[in-house]
């Protein structure tokens, strides 16, 4: 029953471009665009949840890693002429290396101070993106980033030019992130993550070094965020400093905390709700942030497990 339901859902998700073409032919492009965004945000939110939900470190630096990946990919593709897969791997590695480097001093901070330190990092990253004009072109943005071409040099190549193509690419990336998320959070490693989250002194006493596992989750999450950044710029073909502001942090917090911290299903539901809904309602960004903030406040105060707990209760 459960397996059948998941299979049906997967079939609907994979065949979404045709369904959209059949159901809403007039707004086909717009709906597909929202779907691409939803898939990319879901992947980004899952990587964020690895840190927030599974090792319990409230990092607010995720936009910085997303931005490092996005800018690396944009620069590699436009200035160095790297192929898509090379730029993608380069972007993910760059974000991961940055995270490992800044993670060492940041994890000397505990709890609140860690959160503030990471928010400071996000702010510095955004200041750099705006002001390091020789590299990032600042507010002029990096433009004309080529569309992704899948394939190895010398072999057959598949250019992604259509919207359905972008959708399937984003979906494949999301599927890869889902598998990675499951793999990291279920087995021995996942139990170590949860031990660190739930009782740090006890985990330490049991020989599970909290710092090591936190840094590992932080670096992996940043690597994924960097990869998502690369996909994002290759889809939009432009990268601006506004893509990595505090507004992105708020988006991720809303998706993860309203969806359900530390829960695959919760984060996916959150990503669908809070990426698609504001697009459909066509909210102005300021109003969206006011509503998001109020919702976040109400939900963390009233029901900290997020919508996931409501879903679970409804399922019973």
């Amino acid at each position, binding site marked *: 029953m459960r397996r059948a339901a998941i299979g049906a859902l997967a079939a609907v998700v994979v065949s979404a471009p045709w369904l959209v073409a059949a159901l809403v032919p007039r707004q086909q492009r717009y709906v597909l665009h929202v779907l691409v965004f939803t898939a990319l945000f879901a992947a980004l939110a899952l990587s964020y949840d690895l840190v927030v939900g599974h090792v319990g470190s409230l990092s607010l630096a995720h936009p910085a890693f997303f931005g490092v990946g996005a800018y690396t990919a944009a620069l590699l593709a436009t200035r160095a002429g790297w192929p898509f897969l090379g730029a993608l791997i380069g972007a993910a590695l760059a974000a991961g290396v940055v995270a490992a480097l800044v993670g060492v001093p940041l994890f000397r901070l505990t709890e609140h101070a860690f*959160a503030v330190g990471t928010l*400071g*990092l996000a702010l510095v990253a955004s*200041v750099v993106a*705006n002001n390091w004009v020789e590299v990032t072109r600042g507010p002029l943005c990096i433009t004309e980033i080529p569309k992704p071409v899948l394939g190895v040099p010398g072999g057959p190549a598949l250019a992604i030019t259509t919207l359905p193509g972008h959708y399937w690419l984003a979906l494949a990336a999301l599927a890869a992130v889902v598998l990675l998320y499951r793999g990291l959070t279920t087995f021995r490693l996942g139990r170590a993550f949860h031990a660190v989250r739930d009782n740090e002194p006890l985990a330490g006493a049991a020989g599970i070094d909290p710092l090591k596992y936190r840094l590992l989750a932080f670096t992996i999450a940043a690597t994924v965020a960097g990869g998502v950044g690369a996909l994002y710029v290759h889809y939009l073909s432009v990268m601006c400093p506004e893509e990595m502001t505090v507004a992105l942090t708020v988006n991720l917090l809303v998706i993860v905390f309203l969806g359900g911290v530390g829960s695959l299903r919760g984060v996916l539901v959150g990503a669908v709700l809070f990426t698609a809904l504001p697009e459909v309602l066509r909210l102005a960004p300021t109003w969206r942030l*006011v509503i998001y903030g109020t919702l*976040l406040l109400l939900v963390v*105060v009233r029901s*900290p497990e997020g919508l996931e707990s409501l879903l679970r209760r409804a399922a019973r």
Partner: protein
Amino acid sequence: MTPIADLLEQLLHGLTLGAMYAMVAAGLALMLGVARLINFAHGEFFMLGAYAFWLGYSELGLPYPIAALLAPAVMVIFGIVYQHTVIRAILPRSWHVQLIATLATSIVLTNLAIIVLGTQPKEVPTTLSARILEVGGFRIAWQRLLVLVAALVIFWGLDRFVARTRTGRAMRAMSQNREACAVVGVDVQRVTLVTFALSAGLAAVAATLVSPLFNIFPDMGTVLTLKAFAAVVAGGFGYVNGAIAASFLIGITEALAGSYISYAYKDAIAFVIMIAVLLWRPQGLFGRRIGI
């Protein structure tokens, strides 16, 4: 201008910045010490205080001293309302919940301010900010002198308040052991409320003092919260005088770096200082184990 006069001017500029950061950071440190709470919406107290001052001074045409007293009074009330609505609900909860709730409040306040007041910066020049004191080629606006003198008086008063008065002693006691305070009959709720009112008032005083020198805009609070928090962390977690000292260090470094190194990156200085201090002394510059 001679290089020496230029350096002196930048130092004074840094002291003004430091005074502003210190008034915001002192409030943050008080809340952290007494209630074990990080208020991410603290910079928004400053922002709202600045707009209250702008409303009183520029729009209603009140004289400077009255407008400068009105804004803190408004923000004290705002602090009390905030304590009653948001803080009371999250105080018993985990720090995750507290942090996200206050961050959410900050976002709501910033964006409501954008909707109501627009993104166009407001300028509130006063007679004191336009009048310049000139001593041997060295120039300083009277408003900056006012900021420095007022800051000295305020920090002295705050120190006396925390050290001597009954409420101040209760605040220090609560920063050491909240449960024991409740057991021996300290009115924990009232002291928390006083702390919030005082912190909000301090942020608004800073706003009325420096607004004539800088522009007022809706999202100035976020960066200010972060810098003030960097000062709190660098000064020793929740230790008020340490936070004040670190704020001045950040203000002066920022002014000098902004003038001699790079203006564009001056906002990053506070975090560089914070990280450097934490690598060198993880407990902060003046860190102790307990207490405000």
